[in-house]
């Protein structure tokens, strides 16, 4: 008994001194300037450097995030085959975020603090990004986030390689307006992205004389759309703006077709349906409907041909490529460009070098904005073809500068706060 107590007090003493040592360490770092702690941990002495992939490999998001992991892996292999980054081979540490924001935060901490990776790539849902944000900011590390999202965020520790709202939703509205649509019905899942997107749509509509005929939200995983589609039909809007997510899209489009509604009578423009999802919805149920993204598998460019071909050879001929996969693939090459421009793996150097770094991505040329850490991308409206692929119907022509707070749009004054 007494020996046990002695051991425990010894342990306490050890912990205490460890704590003291850490505090001492911390203050020393503070003296030396912020960021030194994270920098010292990354090992760049050998002929390889560690990077982290953090995607949901299990849980409900695995369906989507596995494909992002696949294209990240392919990008890393391509970079390694062509000599690595600054002559160092990339050694990938992969972690499973398990579709749980808290696990994303936990695994991000692990990748940064014990694996000492130079940068982390991944995340999908906004809640996973919001959970990881404080981790990356407090450790002064880097996250590359590859999915279109609701904007209104800009962290110096995150690079957003998917579209922000002015590169996807605003161009989609421009397209609908050009098509002569004068009234809209908004349908979305009940969570942050659709709610924010619809706020933006309503502000745009008010400034452009478009009437909002109705706004309906369905809980995530909602399976019966008979009532919502009946409301949509009875409202008689010129088009539907769809921000539903996941399986709900399947039930929605089946119901839509069953009630005899067509893309000709009332098109449904979707912002969360990519090549991957078309098969599950059923091509017959969605053919001819417009979608808004920045990349389609059918883009005719040498960069995209190479990307699609390589993906099919690696993962199977039946696989399709989609916007988030392309944005993830691109993110790794953008990081490589930043590191090479900075001639350093250190986070502050990479951040300083980031502005202006560009890459001839499968979607076209993209350029990093050094101020808000988003990238300039071309907006594309596509239509779903009978083969289940998406064909570009309308393009913004040139890359659109990212504006996550919509500061350059007068009608959005009330949104950015």
């Amino acid at each position, binding site marked *: 008994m007494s020996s046990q107590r002695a051991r425990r007090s010894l342990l306490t003493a050890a912990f205490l001194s460890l704590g003291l040592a850490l505090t001492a360490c911390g203050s020393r770092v503070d003296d030396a300037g912020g960021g030194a702690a994270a920098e010292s941990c990354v090992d760049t002495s050998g002929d390889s450097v560690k990077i982290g992939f953090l995607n949901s490999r299990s849980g409900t998001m695995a369906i989507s995030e596995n494909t992002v992991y696949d294209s990240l892996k392919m990008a890393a292999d391509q970079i390694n085959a062509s000599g690595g980054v600054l002559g160092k081979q990339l050694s990938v540490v992969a972690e499973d975020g398990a579709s749980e924001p808290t696990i994303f935060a936990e695994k991000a901490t692990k990748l940064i603090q014990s694996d000492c990776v130079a940068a982390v790539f991944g995340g999908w849902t906004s809640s996973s990004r919001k959970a990881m944000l404080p981790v990356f900011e407090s450790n002064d590390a880097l996250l590359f986030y590859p999915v279109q999202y609701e904007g209104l965020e800009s962290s110096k520790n995150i690079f957003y390689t998917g579209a922000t709202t002015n590169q996807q939703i605003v161009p989609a509205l421009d397209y609908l307006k050009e098509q002569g649509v004068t009234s809209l019905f908004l349908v979305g899942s009940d969570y942050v992205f659709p709610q924010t997107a619809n706020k933006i749509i309503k502000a745009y509509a008010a400034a452009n004389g478009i009437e909002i005929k109705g706004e309906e939200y*369905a809980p995530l995983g909602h399976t019966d759309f008979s*009532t919502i589609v009946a409301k949509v039909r009875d409202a008689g809007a010129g088009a539907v703006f769809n921000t539903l997510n996941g399986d709900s899209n399947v039930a929605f489009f*089946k119901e839509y077709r069953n009630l005899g509604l067509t893309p000709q009578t009332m098109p449904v423009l979707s912002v969360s349906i990519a090549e991957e999802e078309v098969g599950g919805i059923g*091509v017959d149920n969605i053919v001819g409907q417009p979608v808004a993204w920045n990349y389609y598998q059918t883009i005719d460019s040498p960069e995209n041909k190479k990307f699609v071909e390589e993906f099919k050879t690696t993962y199977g001929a039946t696989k399709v490529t989609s916007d988030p996969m392309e944005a993830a693939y691109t993110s790794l090459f953008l990081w490589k460009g930043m590191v090479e421009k900075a001639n350093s793996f250190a986070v502050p150097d990479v951040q300083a070098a980031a502005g202006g770094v560009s890459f001839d991505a499968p979607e076209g040329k993209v350029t990093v904005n050094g101020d808000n850490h988003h990238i300039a991308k071309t907006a594309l409206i596509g239509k779903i073809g009978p083969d289940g692929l998406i064909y570009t119907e309308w393009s913004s022509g040139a890359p659109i500068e990212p504006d996550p707070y919509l500061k350059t749009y007068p009608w959005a004054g009330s949104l950015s706060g």
Partner: protein
Amino acid sequence: MDILVTQVFNGLSVGSILLLAALGLALTFGQMGVINMAHGEFMMAGAYTAYVCQQVLGDAGLSLLVSLPVSFVVGGLLGVLLEVTLLRRMYHRPLDTLLVTWGVSLILQQLARDLFGTAGVDVPAPGWLSGPVEILGFSFPRSRLFILVLAIVAVVAVTLLLKLTPLGRRIRATVQNRQLAESAGISTRRTDMLTFFLGSGLAGVAGVALTLMGSISSNLGTSYIVDAFLVVIIGGIGQIKGAVIAAFVLGVAQSWIEYSTSASIAKVIVFALVVAFLQFRPQGIFQVRTRSLV
């Protein structure tokens, strides 16, 4: 008037889907007191069976009709397998069956992901089931009419089976008093197994119907299992007519409240009403009258 007809029909349609999902559960949960969380995954198996049938047969109309009996057998066999290997060992331990069957449901979901991939698949509806049909000036989706008819046929078939066949008599006897049924010479083990086959087979049929409505993926079952239990509990355990009334009342209530509010609010209100109802009638709409002490 237009809205009235549309919403009453939508309510009946939602109810018919709930009913198909809950009918099998009313048998297994009702007779054996087994909380079978894998019931939803038997529906998923039925839906994937419809997918496989279509891949093999090609023709959408033929494969839909073929997949109804095939899914019944696939669902039923899965149910028997579960009953014989696991559940038989844990009657009178309802909480254990809940955990075990939940585990089984996770295994089946992973199996579906490994076999059919993580992305959803599609079973195109045959031509004669897509689009709306005009009746008395109102347009109704053909697929929803089909499901309504299918649900009615299933209920009539199960009712006749329970009322008129020797198996039905054994099932009813076992529900009312297990010990007495046993002492009257009924093999309750065999009856249990057959009931489980029937109940799980109905889940398979429900799965085929769901391919007309929503997504076919590994999490199909989880979207319906809670609603199915809700129907069985409101209807009164072990009662088919209770389940029928409960399903249609829930469906119509959900559709009406959703029409005047929103989908999320409707769900909340319906659950609140259910809680209030069970406060006053914890035994559900109907109750099996029994002199059994357990």
